[in-house]
């Protein structure tokens, strides 16, 4: 896990973000326990309250559940919700691209053309290896 001290993004959000990505990608599986709060604080060299806040955020999002005295375990991920989460990510990224395209004064055709070209590139790379 990489934490940046001066990125402007609070440390607890950086932790939550990276654990969230691991959960959604299935790297952390259903029922699996997250590292202990104080253990993670020690390993990441940050305060206990920061890791605690990250875990509480994930709990509020319904990704993990706190088990009294045992820590936090990963919830079953609803496939619909998972898809929703990924969809939201796609939308956000595309919106960003649209805004950048506006600044560059690209036309709709140019923008769609770029998207298609990129899709082809990815496809050929996937079949390439």
């Amino acid at each position, binding site marked *: 896990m990489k934490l940046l001290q001066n990125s402007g993004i609070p440390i*607890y959000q950086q932790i939550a973000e990276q654990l969230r990505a691991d959960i959604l990608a299935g790297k952390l599986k259903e029922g699996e326990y997250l590292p*202990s709060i*104080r253990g993670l604080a*020690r390993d990441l*060299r940050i*305060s*206990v*309250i*920061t890791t605690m*806040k990250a875990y509480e955020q994930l709990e509020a999002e319904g990704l993990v559940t706190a088990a009294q005295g045992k820590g936090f375990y990963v919830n079953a991920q609803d496939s619909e919700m998972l898809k929703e989460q990924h969809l939201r990510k796609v939308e956000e990224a595309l919106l960003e691209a649209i805004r950048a395209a506006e600044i560059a004064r690209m036309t709709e055709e140019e923008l769609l053309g770029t998207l298609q070209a990129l899709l082809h590139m990815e496809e050929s790379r996937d079949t390439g290896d």
Partner: protein
Amino acid sequence: MKEGRRNAIQVCGLKKKYRGFELSVPRLDVPEGFATALIGENGAGKTTLLNILTGIRRDFKGDVTYFGEERKLNAQTQECIGYTGPGCYFLPNWTVDQVEEISSLLFSGFHNDRFRSLCKELGIKRGLVRDVKKLSDGNRMKLMLAAALARDTQLLILDEPASPLDPLMRDKLCDMIREYLERGNGKRSVFFSTHNIADMENVTDYAVILEHGNVVEEGFVEDLKEKYICVKGEAADGERAGEILFSVSKNAYGFEGICLAENLDRLAGMDVAVETPTLSQISVAVMKANTGLKL
């Protein structure tokens, strides 16, 4: 995070009067399982408070209980508390070996092997003919830390542990505090005073700011970082912003200050940028707002 929380130390109605100074703490809870920093100006009463909590000072009014169990300070409680302070409680002519020998006689939970490995880890040279009085301030602090950490305790009370240490050792101190907390699995706590807030920020869970013998601010650091906000703006707005901000510093190019997050909308219409403050910025702002000094 706050429900079902136990306190490592609970202070009720504490009063201690000196000539021209009074320490008055109606209520203070040091949460269990966390590292709590005690911050304040010189002469704010930090050492007096810590001395009362460790039992070095017993002439005070009020109640102090430990470990959420209404436990008073007695021999059994003191066995669970480790302390390091600005002075030195080892006799001046003791050698490192004698510190070990006497500590193991004094405390039933003292582990000689742990003390030796801590000495090694901290670079305290044993065997060399070295009286405690000949140690530098930094090495004396390291020796006290080794002696305190070699014991089985539930609470560490550290009075200015970082001050005499070099930057590398401060880093090590933070690691040792985190490790201490981790091994306790939520049952161990640390309460330390410090002026080196920036160095200790990444190990501070709860902060208590003391001014003129009064607690002027306290809370979990993550909550304080939401309560206060750091504001930067253009010089033209400096005057007006100064009335809203908690503490502000101005120059020809702009101003910078800390304000309560709830007052942020009163800055509407000004060209300002905001960011999350560090614990050091919050502490300095709160201290500035409460200090008797004209800065």
